[in-house]
């Protein structure tokens, strides 16, 4: 079976202001050759630190910003080859939940209008059917019907994220991109929202692209996990495999640094390397492995040659010396 979403060699760059009128404009290479596939009803986690390009991948997959290279195939069709009208029609199948529920809802619209907006915009159903659909979505995400006429500022963060999820589900999408949907929430609300997303995936056969820097959240909900570093995927493997046998040195450092996984130290997994320093600048990335400057295992080869993603055991790892 062909994958629902097939991303190949995705490249995204943001032009930077040049130093002079005629000087070449440098560009920030946010995403460099990212490839992955996602099947119907599956969940892929994209994990990395701030600036790794996770959100950029998510937005480029939705065609909310323009990729400069590569292809994004959804259900066999390249999204970047579609004209404006076809892309608009396709948006039914692709929806997104943003990180910050305080900025992702229009403060001047009522909750029901926010949830109904995609149906209005894409012209799905008649007004009565739209109202019924909105009422059903409110119930499904755990909001009360009498809250429909309230404004976003009258809701808590968790309730706002429920509104955002209801809006994303309104058109009956097949792929839901979640851009750090629980990062702005407290622990209990986070758990509730994660359970809601997992339930929705099972009920509707939704494919989830789940962007997060929170390994605990990704572990709860994802089948596969891709670790990103400076615009590249450095390790891609199944959830259990990744947590049991992290192979890229960066993955190991991430796992060691995650506070929610700290109890695992008692099982003999001591923090091997507390990472020092910061990632190099994405404006002029180094020729070799981007992680070489911070890697305990780095050799001259690492600094000269960029490792490609290759199968190591059950994982795929971009490292010359995978562990």
């Amino acid at each position: 079976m062909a994958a629902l979403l097939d991303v190949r060699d995705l490249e995204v760059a943001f032009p930077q202001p040049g130093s002079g009128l005629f000087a070449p404009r440098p560009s920030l290479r946010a995403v460099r050759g990212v490839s992955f596939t996602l099947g119907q009803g599956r969940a892929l986690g994209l994990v990395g630190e701030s600036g790794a390009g996770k959100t950029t991948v998510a937005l480029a997959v939705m065609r909310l910003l323009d990729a400069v290279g590569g292809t994004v195939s959804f259900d066999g069709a390249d999204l970047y080859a579609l004209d404006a009208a076809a892309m608009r029609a396709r948006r039914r199948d692709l929806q997104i939940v943003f990180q910050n529920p305080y900025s992702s809802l229009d403060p001047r619209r009522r909750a029901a209008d926010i949830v109904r907006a995609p149906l209005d915009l894409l012209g799905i159903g008649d007004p009565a059917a739209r109202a019924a659909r909105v009422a059903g979505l409110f119930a499904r995400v755990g909001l009360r019907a009498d809250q429909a006429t309230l404004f976003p500022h009258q809701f808590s963060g968790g309730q706002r994220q429920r509104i955002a999820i209801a809006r994303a589900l309104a058109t009956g999408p097949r792929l839901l991109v979640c851009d750090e949907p629980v990062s702005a929430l407290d622990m209990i609300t986070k758990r509730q929202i994660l359970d809601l997303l997992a339930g929705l995936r099972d009920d509707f056969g939704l494919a989830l692209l789940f962007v997060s820097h929170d390994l605990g959240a990704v572990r709860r909900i994802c089948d596969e996990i891709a670790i990103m570093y400076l615009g590249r995927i450095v390790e891609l493997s199944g959830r259990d495999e990744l947590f049991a046998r992290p192979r890229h040195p960066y993955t190991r450092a991430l796992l060691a640094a995650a506070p929610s996984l700290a109890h695992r130290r008692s099982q003999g997994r001591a923090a091997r390397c507390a990472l020092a320093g910061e990632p190099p600048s994405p404006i002029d990335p180094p020729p070799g492995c981007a992680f070489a400057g911070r890697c305990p295992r780095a050799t001259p080869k690492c600094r000269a040659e960029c490792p490609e993603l290759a199968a190591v055991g059950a994982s795929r790892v971009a490292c010359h010396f995978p562990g």
Partner: protein
Amino acid sequence: MTGRADPWLRRFLSACRTGPSAVVGMAALLVVCAMALYSVFLDGRDPFDIVSLPHRAPTFVGPLPLGTDYLGRDLAVCLLAGAAPTLSVAAVAAGLAMVLGVALGALAGFFGGRLDDLLMRFTEFFQVLPALLFAMVLVTLWSPSPTTIALTIGFVAWPPTARLARAEFLRIRDLEYVVAARAAGAGAGHLMWRVILPNAAPPLIVSATLVVTTAILFEAALSFLGLGDPDTMSWGQIIGANREYVLDAWWPVAFPGLAIFLTVLAVSLLGDGLNRILDPKSDGA
């Protein structure tokens, strides 16, 4: 509050609670509008008629309540007759300035890039010209009439609004709820007018009240300088005509000045209160 009350009454009461200044401003503006309507449709007296000796002092009661001007014209009739041209010039000028300013600012802020550069250089070209001098030149080129004066004022008053609209559109266009609307299939037109504009409204409403007041003051200034239409009795015209005798008779300058001051104040109060009423966070419910 009773739930069964007439919805319009409830709305009005809610508006009184959240934006009392809007109600005060609206009431004052309605008084000015009533003056204008009375003068245009009911008052048969011609403000240009000489009815008595010049510079009769105001008595506040009797046949000449506000006295007469330097030619012996009834100042009360002049004041009533001045409401309509002053208000209509201000409304047309402010409408033109807001439409031009918001449209150009919105396009520049939303699309950015070359279009932004082009529109902003164009705006700056107008901004570096002293607005009143530019208006004087335009009025002198055209023959002064209420229409040309209104269009001229609108044409010189839009750049600040354009810059403000651009800044607001630029700020809001990348917010997540706008991206969410794009993800839901919204096109540029819907994003600009249905999503961004309502959220950019508060500073633009304030800007609109400033443009209205600017227009009233510009009209007064042009008339004061003798560039207004001499056949139209506007408040600025009355002040301009009587300014030379202000040391002998204060009232022909003071009363129209007071009328301009109160009208400008009413418009400012209305804008301020309107913002409170439109803000969902101040909803009394």
